Structure formats: C-alpha cells, structure tokens
C-alpha cells in the first residue's frame, strides 16, 4: 500500500511539475534552429522602437506648427500645420499595428485613429468646452481624424478655416488639446518600451498563446484584416454594405492623402513580415517560414506572400491619390485592390498561421 501510494504520488508529481513551469518558456535556444528571441529583437530594434521615436518626433513638430498657427493664424501657417499633420499621420502608420504592451492597455490605436470622426460632436465641444478625452466614447472626436476636421474641414476654404481660428478661441484650444493628448499617449508607450518592456517582450519568446510571437502575430493579422484591408479600402468601397461609402475614407477632409496613408501602412505590413526595412536581408516571419518549411509541395510560402504584397502595391498605385474620388468615380479599382488584399489574408491567416503553429483565436479554451 505504502509503496504504491508513494509511487503514485511520485508519478503524479513527475507529470505535474514540468506542466507547472511550461507556461512562459525561459529557454530561448530553439532547437528547431530558429531563434524566436532574435526575431523579437529584430522587430523591437529595427521597427518598433525607431517607429515610435520617429512618430513622437513628428508629433513634437506638429505641436510646434500648431502653436505657430494658433499664435498667428494665416494661410501659410495653416499649410505648414497641415503638412506637419500629414507627416505625423504617415509616421503613425508605422506603429499602428503594434497594439501590444502599453499601447494595448491605453488603447493607443482607438484613441489615435478612429474614423469617421463626428463633426457635430466636435462643433458641440468647440462651443461648450472639451470633454474628458480619456472616455472611450470620445475616441472618434480625437486623434488624427478630429484634427483632420479642424484643420481641413471646419470651413469651406483655407481663408474660412483661418478666420474661424481667429474668431473662435475654441478651435485653437481644442487643436492644442488633441495634439497634447497624442503626445502624452505616445510618450507613455515609448517610455514603457524604453523602461523594460523591450526586454520583457524579447524574453517572452516561448510558444504559448501569451508569448510575444503569438501575440504580435495575432496583432499583425488583426491589423492587416481590420485596419488595412477593411477600414482603409473595403468599407469605403462598400464591400460590407449595400452601397459604397466614400465618406468613410481615412483623412476624409484631406482625401488626397488617403492613398499615401494606405501605402505607408502597407509598407509597414511588408516590413513587419520581412522583419526589416531593407529588402535584401531576410529576418521576420519570412525567415521563420523559410526555416520551418512545413508547407508540402509548391512554392515557398514567404515568396508567395511577398509576391502578393507586390501585386497589392501595383493595384494600389493604379488608383487615384484620393480614395474618396476613386470610390465615387471608379469604385471597381478599389474592389480590385480589396480582392488583392484578401488573397493575402488567406496566405497569412491560413497558411502562415498553420505553418507557425499560431492559433488565430486568442481564446485560451481547452483543445482536444
């Protein structure tokens, strides 16, 4: 009796103990030869951190331009402010997909770029004072889309906008408030990366559902499907509705920027996939896929995906600078771009996720 009980307890312990410490793998030297920690380091050091640093710098420039314009509103200062805004909006596209860590906990993406914005609400705030911008209910009245309305759409002409900034204190105050909020949020996120999160991110290099690779690849997929494919292209093109919705384009009040913003967002998706800004060297998911080689037969998956990125780029370059105009004049081109984006959803979400053994569901429920 005693002997068998001891054996039983020993065996139970033998199987429970390793289970207890497997959740967050500490050992990073993957014997499959692929170093996931190196992959994470590449993402952090060559894309994420430089991305935030650059974005934050453009926000500070934006603040300067805004201060200059608010102090002395005229059309040339407005044009300068507008170009700073666009620079910042472009820089944002290079960090928008990293909804992880602090960015996730402060909902950086939602507070920065929820569109369409609501002019009626903004006008209400201009008249009655700004609300608490930390409330989730105010997210479409802040960030780049709200600034878009203020500096591009709050009056019918540049002179009209300048005149509003001269005659109504509310516009300048609200503009400054929105920019400060963007700076505040971004600083929090960047500081978090600088003060330890980079290491935490890299060290969580296991393969569990909560590991950095699984999480950020899921973020990537989510961003690609929802923000790039649907929000920037599919929704305005009316893919999901009974008619096209040209008023849903990004930067609606300065629609000439919409294709530019899309191109930069696409560019960052390509960078992330290849782990680098340079085309020659291969790191990132492409290298991981090449290493695992789990897809049987046919071409290399990384080549297929990169090829499709080229197709997408080509289709997008055929379109007008203004997606609003494109939707209104020739929506077919938008639909073609959407289908090209969709083809990579299949390759990324089905083939790549399977090869990397990453689950798409984010649910930690039991399996069979």
């Amino acid at each position, binding site marked *: *009796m005693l002997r*068998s*009980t001891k*054996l039983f307890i020993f*065996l*139970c312990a*033998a*199987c*429970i103990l*390793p*289970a207890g410490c*497997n959740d967050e*793998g*500490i*050992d*990073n030297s*993957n*014997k*499959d*030869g692929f170093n996931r920690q190196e992959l994470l380091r590449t993402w952090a050091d060559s894309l994420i951190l430089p991305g935030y640093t650059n974005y934050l710098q453009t926000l500070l420039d934006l603040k300067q331009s805004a201060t200059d314009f608010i102090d002395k509103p005229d059309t040339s200062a407005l044009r300068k402010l507008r170009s700073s805004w666009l620079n910042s909006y472009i820089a944002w596209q290079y960090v928008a997909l990293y909804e992880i860590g602090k960015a996730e906990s402060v909902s950086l993406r939602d507070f920065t770029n929820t569109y369409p914005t609501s002019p009626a609400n903004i006008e209400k705030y201009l008249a009655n004072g700004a609300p608490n911008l930390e409330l989730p209910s105010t997210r479409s009245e802040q960030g780049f889309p709200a600034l878009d309305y203020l500096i591009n759409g709050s009056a019918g002409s540049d002179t009209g906008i300048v005149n509003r900034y001269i005659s109504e204190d509310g516009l300048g105050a609200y503009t400054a408030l929105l920019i400060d909020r963007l700076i505040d949020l971004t600083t929090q996120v960047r500081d978090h990366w600088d003060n330890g999160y980079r290491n935490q991110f890299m060290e969580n*290099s*296991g*393969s569990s*559902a909560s590991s950095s690779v699984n999480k950020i690849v899921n973020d990537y997929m989510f961003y690609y499907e*929802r923000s790039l494919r*649907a929000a920037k292209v*599919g929704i305005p093109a*009316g*893919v*999901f*509705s*009974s*008619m096209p919705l040209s008023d849903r384009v990004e930067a609606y009040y300065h629609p000439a920027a919409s294709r530019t913003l899309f191109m930069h967002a696409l560019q960052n998706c390509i960078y992330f996939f290849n782990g680098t800004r340079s085309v020659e060297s291969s790191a990132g998911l492409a290298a991981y896929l090449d290493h*695992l080689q*789990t*897809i*049987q*037969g*046919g071409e290399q*998956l990384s080549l297929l995906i990169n090829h499709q990125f080229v197709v997408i780029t080509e289709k997008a370059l055929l379109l007008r600078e203004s997606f609003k105009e494109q939707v209104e004049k020739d929506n077919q081109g938008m639909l073609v771009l959407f289908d090209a984006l*969709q083809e990579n*959803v*299949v390759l990324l*979400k*089905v*083939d790549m*996720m*399977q*090869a990397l*053994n990453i*689950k*798409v*569901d*984010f*649910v*930690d*429920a*039991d*399996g*069979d």
Partner: protein
Amino acid sequence: MEFRTSKKYVERMGHAAPLAVFRIYFGMMMLAGIIRFWLNGWIEKLYLLPRFHFHYLGFEFVTVPGNWTYALFALCALSATGIMLGYRYRLSASLFFLSFTYIELMDKTTYLNHYYFISLVAFLLIFLPANRYFSIDTLRNPHLNCEFVPRWNIDALRLMLAIVYFYAGLAKLNSEWLFHAQPLRIWLPTQTDIPLLGTLFGEEWMLYAMSWGGAIYDLSIPFLLLYSRTRWFAFGLVVFFHGLTSILFPIGMFPYIMIGSTLLFFSDGFHQKIVNRLAALVRFPAKHLHNGITAPSKTLVPLLLSVFFLFQLLIPFRYLLYPGELFWTEEGYRFSWRVMLMEKAGSATFVLSFPGEEKSIQIDNRAHLTPFQEKQMSTQPDLILEYAHYLRDKYRKPDGRTPQVFVRSHVALNGRKSAPYIDPTIDLASEKPGLHPKKWILPFGHEIQGL
C-alpha cells in the same frame, strides 16, 4: 450454452470499492473542472458573449439561458459534488449528466471528445450502483449498503475507457499520422522550449517516434492495463503519456481525468486500501465497509448497457457511409475519438446577394461571431452551413425576400497549401442541413490512406 455463459458473467461479483473510488475521483475532477471553467471566465466568453450559437442536429431547442447559465453551471458543480459524496447519488448523477450534456449542446463550437467522454461516463454512472459503498447514501439508508456488486458494473466503465483508447489508436492508423508524422510535424517544432524533450522536437526521427509511439500506446494500453503483470508498467505509461500531452497541448483537466480513471483496472484490494485510507481520514464508520452484503443483480441494466456499447462500437465507423476524405469533409468525424489527428486552418468569407440586385454584400464575420467561433466555423462544413442560414435570416428584407448566401473559403490541412473548400457558386441559403453527404464541399485533391 452461450446464454448460460453470459448469464454466469452477469452474476459474477466483485468488490464495490473500485466503483466507489471512481465515483469519488470522477466527482472531484468534475467539480474542479467546473470551478476552473468558471474562474477562467469561459462561461461568459464561450456562452454569454457570442450573439449566435452553433447547434447540434436535432438539438436546435437547446439555447443559452442568459444569466441562468451560471445557475446551470452551479447545478452541474453541485451535482458533481453529490456524485463525489455519494449523496442522493442517482439524482445527482442524473442531474450531472443532464446539466453537463446541456452545456455541451449549447454550442457546437466548443465540441471536444473529452466532453463527449464525460457525458458518456456520466450517463453510465446513472445506472451503476456506485453509491452503495463508502457514501453518504449508505449512512442515510443503511439497507443500501453493499460490500459486493456485480462485476459488470466495473467492467462497463473499463470498457468505456478501453473504447476511447483503442478507437483513438485506430484513428491514428492512416498515412498522415504514420508516414508523414502529421500533424505532430507542425505542432512539435514550435514547442522546443520544453525542458529536456524539447530539444529533440526539431529532429525528424523524433516526430516519427512520437507518432508511432502514440498510436501503439493507444492501441495497446487497454490490454496492458487488463493484465496484472503489465498493469504497473501500463500505469507508468499512462502517467508519462498524459503528462506529456498536458505539457505540450492545452487540454486542461483531461489528462488528470484519464490518469485517475485508469486506476479502475487495478485490483479490488488496491481500491479497498484507498477506501480504508480515505475512510480513516474522514472517520467513516468502518462497519459499513465490511458488511459482506452483495448487491442484488439486475437484468435490465446489463441489457441496456449492451445496446449502449453496441452503438459505441459502431458510431465511429459511420464515416464509411460518406464519400470523400473524412479529414477534409468531417462527415462522421465527431463522436469517434479522433483526437489530435489533424491541423486544420481556414478562412471563410460570406457574400450575400439579392436576386435582381447588382450589389452584393460581404459579411464581416466578427460582427456576428467570436474569433473562436469564426475559426471553428471556417473549417467545418456543417458550421459553415448553419452560419449561412443564420445570415440568410438575419439579412431578410422587410418585404420578406431573403438573400442568396455564397462563401469563398480556403482550408489548409496538415501543412498542405490552402485550397478552395466550399463550392463558391452554390447558394448555401437553399441547402438543407442534415446527415446526407454535402455535395457542395469541393474535392480534397489528395489521398489519405488508412482508417
């Protein structure tokens, strides 16, 4: 003659302790499982948050009862406790079976063979006299108390376990598992951060060793457990195997349930020792444990269980009635102990169009399904069809016109490149659900040999 042997078998007696030990362990694990499920927030996540639930054919009436779902889980936990303690046992076992099965029927998305196994065991327990020894019921009604029960009661549970293992082993006898080491080839190489064994998971031979080892284990373990000489060795294997799977895969409580359940194969004496230990611990009156009384034999229950097991032996083979590749179409895939057999991923985009209208609408699945539901739906034709019908009804026009529903879908199976899955020209809105072969599944284009 044959009748006489089976009659004789039915009258064979054994000690009641194994049944009591199993009852206690099972009740305890179920209670822990429900609590774990609750604390993980899965009641909300899996049942309350989704706007739509996938139903089992014939069980469309089973719906999620809103916040009463918590009460349902509470009832399930309470009845599990009743089983464990042997308190109002038959009622507890019945309520547990009903509540647990109801929960499983609420959404097909969450189907797991493990849960099906639990339902079957709970069903068996209703008919077994597991409360006649070392239970609160025997303290309340001493005339229930028996030290011996007909042997078949224990054998029924052993048979259930043996079927699970053996059929899981049979299901592995196919070219994917044995000759391509799939899907372990996908699952193991990313698990290299596991201590000790992890370093081997990148090795080709290791993938085959694990595949073949798993198949041989499943096929042989019931027999190794049956013979007393190999029993301890077999139990060691059980602990090793389930311990390993619990490290490698997110399978929750199941390994521990199985490890404990295999104790059923141990001798009466082994179980008596466990009962004596526990009895001393809870100061259970010893006189109730040694009254020498034998439970009355029943004839109806063995007959019922024979029919039950006949079905159990046949149901997993129903896939033979369908054309096409089982792994691809999944027709006859569930309820067959096909565990961890394939890695399947898919994407399904639904397009709705009204006859006579030029513009079609693409559906954002996330507006209707949780990510988990979307993932499960994308690779299972019956879920695709049910979702298509849901969309048909959801997008019905005020004048009563319903849309045609088309799906563009791709599925990748066991590391093959993704391929079109459902015929995109078929209007799913007008396809009937049912057990008949689904002709709108596109052919697999590859061959998988074996069972």
